[in-house]
């Protein structure tokens, strides 16, 4: 019994991180119609920067938030401005972001080599601490990531539904020219949104660095998880993404515990395929009219 509940709890906690990793791509795809594959490398890069900051300047990885989030916000904003300048269609944006992903990942490998890197325990007590509750262990690093994910997902959801900016984003996502007619500057909205999306990815990368050893090949391993969470959760649907993250987390973790770790990617990708084929608009998104 304990093993199962531990598996579920771990799955839920991991799910938070998965959701955080997927939010950036989901928002970008849903609101900006760009499938930004570079997000995977942003997560990775952020993880490495956090690692490096701890090694070179002894900065507490959680504090590193203050550094990476603004940096990646700017990167995201610049990226969107770049897309505005070159005006590509979806197909080309897929190729271009794929190329950027390759470049960044190779750069990371060139700079940091393919060896595993881990933030030292002195600076990263979170990695080993754990809170016990009801016979189940809640590893601190995962717990923090989960809480952060919930806060951000809920916060973003409120932002999108209650604030003027949120309404502007939704307007731009639905009909650019109409939004412009109502005084919204689609470009500015897109740039800010892209910055936000990238900072979420940066944050996810931070938690990755806190929670495990990192190596360049990690990024490709995230494809399955992130895409299944993104599709299952519904493009641009923040709460849906959070829910989907938890679902995928629990499914993958349960599979891992039951059939071994190799079964986890299998389960994740099967979820993705099922979602793509049968409910591409996501679990929580209501089917739109025609």
């Amino acid at each position, binding site marked *: 019994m304990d093993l199962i509940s531990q598996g579920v709890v771990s799955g839920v906690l991991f799910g938070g991180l998965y959701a955080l990793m997927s939010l950036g791509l989901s928002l970008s795809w849903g609101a900006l119609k760009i499938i930004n594959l570079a997000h995977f490398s942003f997560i990775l890069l952020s993880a490495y920067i956090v690692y490096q900051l701890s090694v070179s300047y002894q900065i507490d990885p959680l504090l590193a938030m203050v550094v990476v989030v603004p940096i990646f916000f700017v990167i995201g904003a610049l990226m969107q401005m770049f897309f505005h300048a070159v005006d590509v269609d979806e197909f080309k944006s897929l190729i271009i972001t794929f190329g950027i992903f390759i470049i960044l990942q190779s750069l990371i490998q060139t700079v940091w080599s393919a060896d595993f890197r881990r933030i030292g325990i002195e600076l990263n007590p979170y990695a080993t601490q754990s809170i016990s509750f009801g016979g189940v262990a809640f590893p601190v690093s995962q717990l923090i990531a989960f809480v952060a994910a919930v806060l951000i997902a809920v916060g973003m959801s409120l932002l999108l539904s209650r604030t003027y900016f949120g309404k502007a984003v939704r307007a731009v996502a639905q009909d650019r020219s109409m939004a412009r007619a109502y005084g919204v500057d689609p470009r500015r909205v897109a740039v800010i949104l892209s910055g936000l999306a990238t900072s979420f990815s940066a944050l996810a990368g931070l938690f990755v660095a806190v929670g495990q050893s990192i190596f360049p090949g990690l990024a490709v391993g995230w494809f399955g998880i992130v895409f299944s969470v993104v599709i299952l959760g519904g493009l641009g649907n923040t709460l849906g993404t959070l829910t989907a993250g938890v679902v995928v987390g629990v499914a993958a973790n349960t599979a891992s515990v039951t059939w071994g770790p190799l079964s986890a990617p299998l389960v994740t990708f099967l979820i993705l395929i099922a979602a793509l084929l049968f409910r591409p608009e996501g679990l929580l998104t209501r*089917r*739109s*009219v*025609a």
Partner: protein
Amino acid sequence: MSLLEVTDVAKRFGGVVALDGVTMRVDEGEILGLVGPNGSGKSTLINVLSGFYAGDQGRVDFADTDVTSLPANQVAALGIARTYQIPRPFDTMTPRENIAVSYMFGQHRHSLAEAREAAGEWLEFTGLGDVADTGINELTLHQLKFLELARALATQPSLLLLDEVLAGLNPSEINQSVEMIQRVHARGITLLIVEHVMRAVMALSHRIVVLDQGKVIVEGEPEQVMADPAVIRAYLGDRGLDA
């Protein structure tokens, strides 16, 4: 003799009822005008007839064949062609190639070689000979519409559905298009034209069917139909009769 029989066709999209039991027919050799206020379901009907949407209920018979649930390419193979309100040419191909592709498929299969020859005929017919080999992005709207027409004609249809082919044209272009439509008809093709430009509809149609809110409200000879109070009410609302 009726070429196309539409019986009680309905189509809804989520909560919106686009077609609410449409029954009508198109007789062989005629030009049928399909009119109605915006949102009355004209385009949806065209999409159902050409096989793009499957109706939720009802039946469509074409030349004594039940085409109700056939996919679009099989409907085309039987001899129904359509044009699009906003022209949709194949934009990596030239006009000549557009027509050639169309000729290769459609009602009768043709080879690549035959298509090269035949395309010229349709280019001449629609007056696009001069721009046959230029890029699509260099054509005017009027030319694009003619290309749309030529492409549909190249499938050698027996029934051609024209979806607002006059929209966006200036008066002289409209006159040219009306003349073109008459020439098409003279070749023995039955036409169903969806149009807003009333004078063209009146000039061309043998019969008119009026749709409103997904239903046929009136059908008959042009003068009769357009004078019918129900039709005026549909277009102008109840106030119209007082004006």
